[in-house]
């Protein structure tokens, strides 16, 4: 447990002291100003624009930072050689991978929460924002980011930082297009249909976490939907981390 906490601590410090962290703070500030200014030219739809633009903006910023930070911290650690610092310490692969994942996730939670609060607290000075409407999309978006971090950790455990970033970005786009992929490949021959099915069932269905676009008329989703989404995210994260441990164990450093 002490080793796990230390890996988390080390990873969190790496995030907080990195240039990416400060960049994300500055971008959050720009985003907050942009959302408020943009809402002013929206012909009476100010609150709707703030909610839609604010949620999408903070989410995309967090996705970008999560991919960059994961690849930077894990990938570069391996490429530069400071992996030897940890690999020769009494730290099991499972502890190392889980610690890195949790450290990155906590770090990204800080960044995401900061930009989210900055945008919506800033906007609430000028407009009356319905906070209950934006909490659920925020929580589900954060779960999506946690999945992307786990995917980035997996790719970093057997490839370079750059390649891991590209693959994670690809998963992000594919994960939001799974329904489209499945319907496009249905009735298009055995091979394509099988590929479509394989992609549909193996990649994370990230649309399940997307309540951002329906924010203005948020559907009355049952509580079980949220629980199942949490279970789905947790299962996918555990699956990715288990594969990462296997890949890390097999890797030559």
């Amino acid at each position, binding site marked *: 447990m002490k*080793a796990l906490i230390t890996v988390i601590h080390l990873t969190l410090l790496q995030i907080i002291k990195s240039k990416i962290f400060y960049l994300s703070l500055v971008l959050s500030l720009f985003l907050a100003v942009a959302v408020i200014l943009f809402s002013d030219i929206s012909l009476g739809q100010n609150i709707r624009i703030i909610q839609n633009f604010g949620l999408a903006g903070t989410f995309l910023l967090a996705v970008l930072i999560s991919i960059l930070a994961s690849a930077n911290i894990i990938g570069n650690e391996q490429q530069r050689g400071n992996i030897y*610092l940890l690999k020769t310490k009494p730290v099991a692969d499972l502890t190392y991978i889980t610690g890195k994942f949790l450290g990155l996730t906590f770090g990204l939670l800080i960044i995401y929460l900061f930009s989210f609060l900055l945008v919506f607290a800033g906007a609430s000075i000028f407009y009356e924002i319905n906070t209950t409407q934006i909490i659920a999309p925020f929580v589900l978006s954060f779960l999506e980011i946690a999945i992307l971090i786990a995917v980035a950790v997996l790719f970093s455990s057997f490839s370079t930082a750059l390649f891991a970033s590209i693959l994670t970005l690809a998963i992000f786009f594919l994960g939001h297009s799974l329904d489209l992929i499945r319907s496009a490949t249905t009735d298009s021959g055995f091979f394509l249909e099988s590929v479509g099915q394989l992609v549909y069932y193996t990649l994370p269905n990230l649309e399940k976490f997307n309540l951002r676009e329906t924010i203005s008329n948020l559907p009355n989703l049952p509580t079980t939907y949220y629980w199942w989404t949490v279970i789905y995210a947790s299962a996918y994260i555990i699956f990715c981390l288990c594969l990462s441990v296997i890949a890390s164990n097999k890797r030559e450093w």
Partner: protein
Amino acid sequence: MQYNIITVSKLSKSYRISLNSTFQALQDASFTVQKGQIVSFIGANGAGKSTLLKVLVGINKPTSGYVKILNHSNDSLYAKNKIAFMPENPQFFSELNALTTLTLLARFYENGVKDVGEILRSVGLYEDRQKPIGTFSKGMKQRLGFAQCLVGNPAIIFLDEPLDGLDPIGRKELKEHFLKLKEQGVTIVLCSHILSDIDEISDQIGIIHAGRLLSLTTPKEFKQHQSLETAFVNHIKNFK
């Protein structure tokens, strides 16, 4: 009492370099190291010294053979609690400072030191403890690389080119450090190109050439009244 703290048996390591060819970096190395000894491996560039150290500390897995540290597999957590490794050109988390880095690394060990300040003082980095490691010179990183080896109170320290990049004073201080650790019963296994330094401190010298451990013997036996450099060159020539 002297006993074998490291046992290496028929250790081989090969790397796949293309689909149908492999590179044999290490071949059938067998030896033992006794507690409290300083054992140095010398060899030309690419001879297999760094590979040997990486396999010994469990970073790379052997293709065949095994390594036992205190009768435990070298990749067990028990063994990792007893060893420390300084790689060639040690790299750190450049955004963190030396004090934070060592404090966190010490927490991984069951028997980790509580006050890393003393270690930083002993390697001459105490004044720079709050500076980001990214601003350190090569020599400072080298000293920090050695310092991080001490945070877990290890029984065995593996060092890959530890004297590289250090000025004469730094080299002298580090050698004195090695001898002090040896007095405390710590075993040191290192590889280096600087033969004069190795000659001064080693109890055993191993010659590695083309992935083979040609000999492992005391400096006196190895040199036979020659300089270490001459003895080393002759040894390699005779092998060829």
